[in-house]
């Protein structure tokens, strides 16, 4: 496989619910622009292919209870970073697909083609109550909203052909309206007319991430599986890229991974793992990633404490992967699609 992408989740202070107690900033700085920028810059400097930003309209379950929405966070760092992909979660169960499409296309312009989207179902009925919409909890309902939202957002991104703006002075026309398209989506619970308000994003289509159930609609499937053999089993897979998700706790100069976890669990017990977990030495983690690179197109790492595990990843793990050629550091000006080996998609509406 030619590409092995390195993703990192940067929500909050880390994946452990007590991670905020080990952060380098005070709790009052948890939601600040400065803290956000430091984390993203650290990940970019390390050479990560992309950063993801979890989100929910509901408060996070850590001690901070606060969270700026993911699109705002990704957008805020878009113009002051240059290589890292910026991939916010935007949920599909209640959000307006038209707004979602505009927000993400805007992120792609501000980041010069480094935008992505994790399309996510929201099963918690409290989210529906916050939105004030009919509650969707049945799997079929969540699947329907996910499917229809991705479909509409993708159609809207294509609803402007790349060369709509013509500035035809003699004919007095700024736009060629034949290259604008109504998307005319009609689903079970909503319809969207189109076209988009934002021109086609720089990448044509942002890189869309989802679960195995979304494989037909997304560019990248994120595999959350606690068992390594199942996670890497190609028998379960169709086309497209596959990323393995990993909870990672590394040995640090002052404490082993086990000691670090034990100390955090004294504050608050971490929930049972829902994805592959690694705890241990740096060299062991390099070996694991090198092996996974044979089976998958990338990983998404969930550091236990961002301010402790990210420095170790940056100093020792990523340089080893770059040295051995397992992974590659993205260069300024490259688009996220380029760095994932994905072509710029042909517009579904353009006449050949």
């Amino acid at each position, binding site marked *: 496989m030619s590409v092995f992408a390195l993703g990192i989740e940067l929500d909050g202070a880390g994946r452990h619910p007590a991670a905020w107690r080990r952060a380098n900033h005070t709790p009052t700085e948890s*939601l*600040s*622009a400065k803290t*956000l*920028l430091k984390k993203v810059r650290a990940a970019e400097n390390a050479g990560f292919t992309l950063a993801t930003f979890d989100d929910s*309209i*509901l*408060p*996070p379950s850590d001690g901070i*209870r*606060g*969270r*700026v929405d993911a*699109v*705002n*966070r990704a*957008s*805020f*760092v878009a*113009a*002051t970073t240059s290589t890292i992909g910026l991939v916010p979660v935007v949920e599909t169960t209640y*959000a*307006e*697909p*038209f*707004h979602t499409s*505009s*927000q993400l*296309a*805007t*992120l792609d*312009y*501000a980041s*010069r083609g480094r935008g992505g989207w994790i399309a996510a179902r929201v099963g918690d009925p*409290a989210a529906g*109550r*916050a*939105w*004030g*919409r009919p509650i969707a909890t049945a799997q079929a309902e969540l699947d329907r909203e996910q499917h229809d939202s991705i479909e509409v957002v993708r159609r809207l991104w294509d609803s*402007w052909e790349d060369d709509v*703006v013509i*500035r035809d*002075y003699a004919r*007095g*026309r*700024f*736009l*060629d*309206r034949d290259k*604008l398209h109504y998307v005319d989506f009609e689903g079970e*619970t*909503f*319809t*969207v*007319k189109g*076209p988009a*308000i*934002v*021109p086609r994003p720089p990448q044509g289509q942002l890189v869309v991430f989802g679960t195995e159930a979304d494989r037909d609609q997304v560019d990248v499937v994120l595999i959350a599986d606690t068992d390594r053999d199942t996670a890497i089993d190609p028998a379960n897979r169709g086309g497209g890229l596959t990323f393995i998700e990993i909870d990672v706790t590394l040995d640090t100069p002052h404490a082993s991974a086990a000691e670090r976890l034990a100390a955090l669990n004294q504050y608050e017990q971490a929930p049972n793992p829902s994805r592959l977990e690694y705890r241990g030495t740096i060299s062991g983690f390099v070996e694991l990633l090198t092996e996974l690179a044979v089976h998958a197109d990338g990983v998404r790492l969930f550091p236990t404490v961002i301010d402790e595990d990210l420095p170790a990843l940056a100093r020792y793990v990523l340089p080893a992967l770059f040295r051995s050629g397992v992974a590659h550091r993205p260069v300024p000006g490259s688009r996220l699609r380029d760095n994932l080996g994905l072509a710029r998609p042909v517009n579904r509406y353009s006449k050949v």
Partner: protein
Amino acid sequence: MSSSDVRRPDAQVHFGVFFQGVNHTTIWSDPASGSQIDFETFRHVITTAERGLFDAFFLGEGLRLREQDGKILDLDIAGRPDAIAQLSALAGITEHIGLVATQNTTYNEPADLARRLAGLDLLSGGRAGWNAVTTDNAWTGENFRRGGFLDHELRYERAGQFIRTARAIWDSWADDANAVRHLDVATSQFNISLDPTLPRSPQGHPVIFQAGDSPTGRDFAAANADVIFSRHGTHFDDALAFANDIRTRLVAVGRPTDDIKIMPGTQIVLAQKASEVEEKRRWVLEGQYTGQTALSLVGLVWGRDLSNLDPDGPLPEFDPVPAPISVTRGAARDGKDPVAIAKEWRALADAKNLSLREVAIETSERSGFVGTPGQVADELARWIRSGASDGFNISPYIVPGGLDEIVEWLVPELQERGVYRTEYTSRTLRGHLGLRPPLTRRGSVDTDSSVAG
């Protein structure tokens, strides 16, 4: 300026820049016209405005591409970013300037929009503003989950409940962030229950702008807004009458007369020498009124597609369809009697020997200020010191460079006259505008966040 005009000798001019993103008033045919969507265009405009010590940078809102006669309008600039996402990106490259997002209260929901505005406010260190607008038409609703669900008379009811709910969401965290109040809202428009996820920024709440001009809209502003983005930015007497009307309405709801700042939308055309002013004015108008745009505007009056006529020829010989002027979808235009207008325009064309395009230019509503930097500075100072407005929300007639002359020529003239700041003295939008704390946060610590109604 006569001394009797000077009601506020110490008043200062506040500038905002409104990056329009639609309308024929933004020239696209000149080589200086840049991309409407590339981030560099926005970077240029906002950093120029910040260099000019502006209070705020404004973005409009797009919910559907404009149409005329059932077709997408292709004559004007179009294609613009989502306001909040773009302002967040711009927050990352600026330090002082306010960031105002136009967002409607019909095709958004309070928990989501209040959270996104609060997020922008936090990340920008207290520089967010919200231009709250209402929409009721089913045509816009075709892009949204609920469709065109709102009756016209309910749009301000929903808007009022929306803003009160947003304020309650912003008030739900204790000042020390150690306690969060769960919020249940049950009104005619909303039935929601949530645990808000964000504390307040240094400015308390995002600054609330309102643009409605009808009596209902003005009352709505008096009850809810911090700033009015008015339409009264061209004629002094009209602006003063509007400002006095707002002050009266403020008193009626128990607010101080200076509790709302009035910033009319306007255009400023500058030429360095008095002898060049007329030529510059013509150049701007001719860029704004291309032949096809003139045919389109005249076509609105005639009630039919005139795009095959010669814009440099005469007005049509046939009469307009005697019906109310059709509305360009997505643009505001008042209905008048087309036959009467045609009669007036023909008389004008005959008297001055004007082509169709020249008539369209001649009859366009004069907009804003034209003159040398010194002339315009005198006039703006008069407006501010007379209480006709508190500032101006300037729409550049060309982007990205349209603001450069204003910052380089006009701002120094205003500073010389002592009516414009020489440095930022605050880091928040509320601070720049000299506004009091948010309406719900002025009394005791346990403020009234009731959202009933």
